[in-house]
């Protein structure tokens, strides 16, 4: 099953798709195909292609993924593409703080159904408000913050159960 990898690195959109089967992985990117096997141990992923193995460190933060490889570190922001596009909703089950700030309002209620675009909560930082919305249809599993809470960048705030479990193919 090939899944779109809708990521952004700084100003550039990355258009790629990933197929995972057991320990095999295929990356389709810019009309090229990269085939590899991988081994994973917690935050470390070894990617082997031919006789070359690269060891990557990975970590999830609110808006994306950090990857370090051979002394270079990238932050890939998850790109929430236009509704109807094929690249939406990666890891849609975790809503994390996009910045350090204060929760000013919580709309999400555990157990409630949500539709894509529904307001979940509002965070304020540097006198600006950010509204966090549901990335797709589903239901609220857990709300992990309350109005007035100070939250750190990347902190898990709400867990959702998407209707279709990640199947944006």
């Amino acid at each position, binding site marked *: 099953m090939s899944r779109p990898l809708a990521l952004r690195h700084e100003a550039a959109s990355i258009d790629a798709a990933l197929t995972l089967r057991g320990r095999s992985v295929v990356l389709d990117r810019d009309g090229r195909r990269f085939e590899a096997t991988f081994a994973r141990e917690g935050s470390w992923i070894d*990617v082997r292609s031919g006789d070359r193995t690269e060891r990557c460190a990975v970590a*999830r933060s609110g808006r994306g993924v950090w990857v370090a490889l051979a002394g270079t570190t*990238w932050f890939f922001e998850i790109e929430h593409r236009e509704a109807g596009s094929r690249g939406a909703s990666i890891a849609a089950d975790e809503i994390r703080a996009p910045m350090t700030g204060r929760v000013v309002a919580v709309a999400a209620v555990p157990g409630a159904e949500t539709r894509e675009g529904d307001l979940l909560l509002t965070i304020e930082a540097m006198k600006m408000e950010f509204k966090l919305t549901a990335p797709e249809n589903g239901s609220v599993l857990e709300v992990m913050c309350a109005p007035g809470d100070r939250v750190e960048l990347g902190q898990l705030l709400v867990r959702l159960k998407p209707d279709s479990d990640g199947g944006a193919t």
Partner: protein
Amino acid sequence: MSAARADLARPGVAAAAGVAGTPRSFRKVLVANRGEIAVRVCRTLQAMSLPSVAVFSDADRGAPHVRAAVEAVRIGPAAPADSYLNIAAILEAARATGADAIHPGYGFLSQSAPFVRACGEAGVTFIGPSAEAMERLGDKESSRRAAVRCGVPVIPGAEDVPDAARARAEAARIGFPVLLKAAGGGGGRGMRRVDSADALPDAFESARREAMASFGNGRIFVEKLIHPARHVEIQILGDGKDAIALGERECSLQRRYQKVIEESPSTAVTAAVRGAMERAAVALARDAGYAGAATVEFLLGPDGSFYFLEVNTRLQVEHPVTEMRFGLDLVRAQIEIAAGGRLPQPSAPRGHAIEARLNAEDPYHGYLPQSGTILLLDWPKGEGIRVDAGIAAGQTIQTHYDSLLAKIVAHGATREEARARLRTALAGLALLGVRTNQRFLLELLADDAFASGGTYTHTLESRSWPAPEGIPDEALVAAGILLFMPREAVAGERDDADRFSPWLSLGAWGRPGAAAGAAARGSAS
């Protein structure tokens, strides 16, 4: 090479051997600093079986330096003026914990004569020079006069220039380009390069404003600009009467007068130049009756002539490169000297050491300071590698203080071996959650200018260093695996945070060959 150094060092050692009596020991030492240097000082205190006290601001609750000490005391809000520069709060912390000595680290109060005097009045030993010696060598003008008195070459220039017109006249006499410098300054603030008489008035006023804002002292002096120049400095230790020199460090790779990579020995320093620099540095320390560690900075011109720049009356950030070559713990030496002990007898320096400063800054986007929470941290290990760090996984890096996160230092039998080890170490370092200059350090170490030893104070800023392009397929594959299989990763991150221990990552020093020992212990843990 080493013969010249040994000849110079020997008289100092002989005199130190005459220090009478057994040195008293301190009961407890307070470390008036934060970050990597506070962790590093605590490490030596622990090795000396001396109880340690950390101080912390509200921004540093639970920080590694707090955990590195036996006790910790809150000294105020995040702003440095309210905490790490707050003399009353620090002395109160010493009184409350029964600390009878204070190690100031570098920066903050380490070069504050009023703090030294306040320590004396409070009956606490300041681990460093007397206030008088600090003022004599720490003030740029006074140290320049001392240099002239001691026969140390100084850069042609004029002191205490009152206005732009006078600066213009002096510059014409010296010859352009000239440098305007703040008398009370440091760290590049209040400094301006001026290439022509026309540009002088504006530069003078702006240097004076910056000096006034940064140091509360608007006095300016003007001097000849040496170009191309290398920054070479001599480490010294004094006991109030005598002093010894511990070779040089070259720190030419700088940006806005902030050092990025430092090494010892310098590729440009001959035995004759080293001997002359060491004699000059020791003469200055003796002249001032200096006790403790200090660094005498010089500019080395293309013809091998060198000029006195300034004295830093404290431990330097880059002191590990000297420690690794001489098998000596400089913090321990500072503490022993402050307790009335002898100057150490260093062994002959061995091999080559290079230090890289890991900063929370983005060199590819205007060096903007970076903040964020460290999600994953894995230090490199290996033969000859030492990591001095003040950070831990889970810690939130804020921008209240300077951006230095850690120093990665490599020692090798040769410069090439040290360079290769440092590159391997930096390539193996993983820090996720905060942008750093890690890639840039690797680019610098790989660059022809550094590989060939052709480093000058303008090398870093006279070129552009573009961000590396292209994202390897493997990095995207790893990102995809994490996104599509997120559960495992969460567990993994937690493991990494728990595994972190500042002590395991610190490395060791104090003995010849300690670097290899540190690496062995690091990988065993």
